[in-house]
């Protein structure tokens, strides 16, 4: 029986024309007409300056934009220095654009990028978001270079951040993924990353692309696949992470549904990979490991605490079905404590998360609902974090974060126990 290919004929024809390449940069887009050109020129600049001799292609995968995103991408001319008499670059910098006819999905876009990388036999690839406002050519180069020159298979970015930016990554995603999968990749969920053709080929073979969990944030799965396949991961310090312009970044609930939901799902499908793994390893890091600036003083976060408290109350039956009775009791207890003396201990936090993950695994209720039920608890933890670190120096915050990571690793046997036995 002939299997349907998700690749359109026109796309294949474009790939044929390009032929084998060394580098591939994917730009997934959806109604990015205003920022796309900046990203495109940035990528072209990177290729011209850093990879003059390499064969390269820039691939735009568009999720049915209703503005002129695709047209802009195809028709805008390569920016060239008029005064310059020589060539703008040695080779043609190929551009291809493909549109898939479903609602925008990062997963589907990545599926196209990975398929193109495999078919064109690209050695190094990067995905950049046209929504990243301070994308520079250095960023793109730094994602490609470790793959192309140092032989890494996955390169995650590292960002300089203000103290209270990216706390979901700092307090949940990083420490948990690190404890579970054993590799210290700080930014598993990011808008730009690099990967090797080898990894692309491995990923293409997996039958996960239609999964709901892959829709919004497929990048962590890619890293975890690399870890599972014994490939080399690394991270590269890029610079300050831009504050997302209002209205474009997902709110906390969506962010948690997309990332935590994806992380739990990754744990589910990669179970054999991590169940017996203990401790974690650092990965090769280019540039500083992290950078925290001391700006960004949090404003009154009382509302966050209220949301935590009401969530614990209102969701009591749901939480009861997810959490172990003792854990649930402890959370109910701290929800009653005084707002100013509130403390959500790391130990409890870790236990909570592990129980959530295990309940996700056992499907005690709809998995998306389960992840949503985590939101109020995360808010509690967030509030506690803000209280504790209102005046902390970046160094202190970093030390505390490391302690949280170690707590996650320490309690991993508990996760394995909950995971493997149904309560």
């Amino acid at each position, binding site marked *: 029986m002939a299997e349907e290919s998700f690749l359109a004929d026109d796309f294949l024809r474009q790939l044929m*024309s390009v032929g084998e390449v060394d580098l591939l940069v994917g730009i997934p887009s959806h109604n990015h007409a205003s920022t796309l050109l900046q990203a495109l020129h940035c990528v072209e600049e990177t290729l011209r300056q850093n990879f003059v*001799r390499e064969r390269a292609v820039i691939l735009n995968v568009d999720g049915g934009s209703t503005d002129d995103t695709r047209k802009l991408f195809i028709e805008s001319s390569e920016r060239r220095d008029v005064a*310059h008499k*020589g060539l703008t670059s040695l*080779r043609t910098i190929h551009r291809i654009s493909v549109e898939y006819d479903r609602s925008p999905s990062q997963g589907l876009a990545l599926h196209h990028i990975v398929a193109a990388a495999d078919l064109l036999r690209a050695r190094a690839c990067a995905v950049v978001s046209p929504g990243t406002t301070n994308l520079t050519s250095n960023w793109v180069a730094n994602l490609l270079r470790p793959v192309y020159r140092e032989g890494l298979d996955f390169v995650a970015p590292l960002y300089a951040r203000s103290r209270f930016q990216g706390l979901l990554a700092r307090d949940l995603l990083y420490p948990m993924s690190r404890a579970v999968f054993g590799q210290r990749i700080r930014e598993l969920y990011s808008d730009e990353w690099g990967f090797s053709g080898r990894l692309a080929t491995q990923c293409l073979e997996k039958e996960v692309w239609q999964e709901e969990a892959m829709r919004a944030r497929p990048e962590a799965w890619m890293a975890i696949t690399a870890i599972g396949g014994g490939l080399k991961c690394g991270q590269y310090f890029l610079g300050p992470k831009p504050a997302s312009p209002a209205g474009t970044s997902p709110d906390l609930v969506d962010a948690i549904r997309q990332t935590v939901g994806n992380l739990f799902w990754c744990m589910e499908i990669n179970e054999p990979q991590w169940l017996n793994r203990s401790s974690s390893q650092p990965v090769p890091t280019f540039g500083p490991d992290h950078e925290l600036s001391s700006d960004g003083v949090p404003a009154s976060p009382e509302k966050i605490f209220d949301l935590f408290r009401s969530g614990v109350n209102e969701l009591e039956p749901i939480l009861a079905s997810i959490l172990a009775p003792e854990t649930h009791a402890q959370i109910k207890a701290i929800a009653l404590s005084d707002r100013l003396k509130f403390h959500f201990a790391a130990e409890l936090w870790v236990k909570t998360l592990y129980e959530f993950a295990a309940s996700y695994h056992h499907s005690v209720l709809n998995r998306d609902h389960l992840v949503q039920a985590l939101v109020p608890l995360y808010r509690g933890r967030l509030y506690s974090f803000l209280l504790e670190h209102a005046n902390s120096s970046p160094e202190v915050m970093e030390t505390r974060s490391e302690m949280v990571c170690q707590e996650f690793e320490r309690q991993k046997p508990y996760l394995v126990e909950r995971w493997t036995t149904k309560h």
Partner: protein
Amino acid sequence: MPQLLDESLWYKDAVIYQLHVRTFCDSNGDGIGDFRGLTTKLDYLQELGINAIWLLPFYPSPLRDDGYDIADYTSVHPSYGTLQDFKDFLTAAHNRRIRVITEMVVNHTSDQHPWFQEARSSRDNPKRDWYVWSDTDTRYQDVRIIFVDTEMSNWAWDPISKAYYWHRFFGHQPDLNYDNPAVRQAMWEVMKFWLDIGVDGFRLDAVPYLIEREGTSCENLPETHEIIREFRQRIDLAYPGKMLLAEANQWPADVRAYFGNGDEFHMAFHFPLMPRMFMAVKLEDRKPIIEILEQTPQIPPNCQWCIFLRNHDELTLEMVTSVERDYMYDEYAGDKAMRINLGIRRRLAPMMENDRRRVELLTGLLLSMPGTPIIYYGDEIGMGDNVYLGDRNGVRTPMQWNGGWNAGFSTADPERLYSPLISNPVYGYQAINVDSQRRSAHSLLSWTKSVIQTRNAFRVFSRGSIEFLNPSNHRVLAYVRRLGEEKVLVVNNLSNSAQAVELNLQMYKRHIPIEMFGRNLFPRIGDLPYLLTLGPYQFYWFRLRRI
């Protein structure tokens, strides 16, 4: 083609063969090629299909710059024969409908030239002002040095007259002072001398450097153009049909000025195109060629570009960016001995790693692109080079006629030859020579003959316009040459692997492509993009006929 000889635009339809009389054939057994020897080889050149010869300098000279240091403009270096030998050669060539272009080194003379000997003899000699003198070496500070490997300054100290003299090339080649009308007149007399003998055109060496002005780069100055226009006027008046070819290693936009309004040079070399053809084949990407031709301005209708793959000098990399230069060095001159000044001293075949397909592809490109092509002697049989001979002598070794004594070049003792022969097993004269290739219908020589023949049969190659097709496959370079109703489609696969290409030929709908070497019909062009598949480095020339 006798009618061609009468045409004043003959240079547009020419296929030029570049040679040095010293390297071609030795008739008197002294180990150095001469005009009598060359005359005996004219049949070979006629057979090859070329219709013009460009001779490198053959004048009396101390030969410290391969003859570009001329000590006497109006006679022949004794090693190469006599003036009568030259006249005989010229007649023989003309009898075979082959034109002859000679070198006119106008910018400088040898320091052995009587003019310079007089000029340096004392500061008040009447010829003193024929050269550019200075008491300091600080004038014209903005001027670049061309031979960066050997020269430290553009000024040289003359110990006899105790002053500095100006030279853009080697220190033994003082620049003439073209501000002096006497110099201009003297040079015109020289030209007249050769035109009277029957020479068909001059290649003017190093034209951008004729005039010096403080505060400028001393290149391409307006006064230089005035001098050229003056020469051209005199030639058009007294010797119509004679041709001037400019050597100006500059960007096309700068060279454009040397065509003037059709009242300066007839032809000029397109220097930046050449390295980019090599680059395109190595990169397997048509971009370098397209981009440089897009930057090439239109020229007056009576003018023509001169294009070449290799010549007697290094493959010059002055007209490329540093990125491109590094790339060319890495890809084509991995051995440092292959590099000289800003270029690569190698011949075509070794640069192509003796890959017949790539040599053919590049030759095919040369003969199908707009411009008058120049073939460097020996490249038609795929001769090798010897980069260890010093300077650029590695690409100036004796022509390889057969596998016998001295490759059939000379009867002298091998030790007496002006230059050792190429003798390695791959490129040596026993493996690569004219006689053996003449015997085979499939040799590079036979192939080259057939392409030149094909080119000569269609004026569209020499005079037609060019329009690039932009197929999405960038490994394929495709263009349509067009002259009136004559249309030729050229499709080149620049890559080392088989390629498919879809060409948008809507403008030529209903035309039938006829492959020009085999004269086979191809499917008629219809509504759909025209699909072609090409093997590695393969190229097609199609006549597009509407029947």
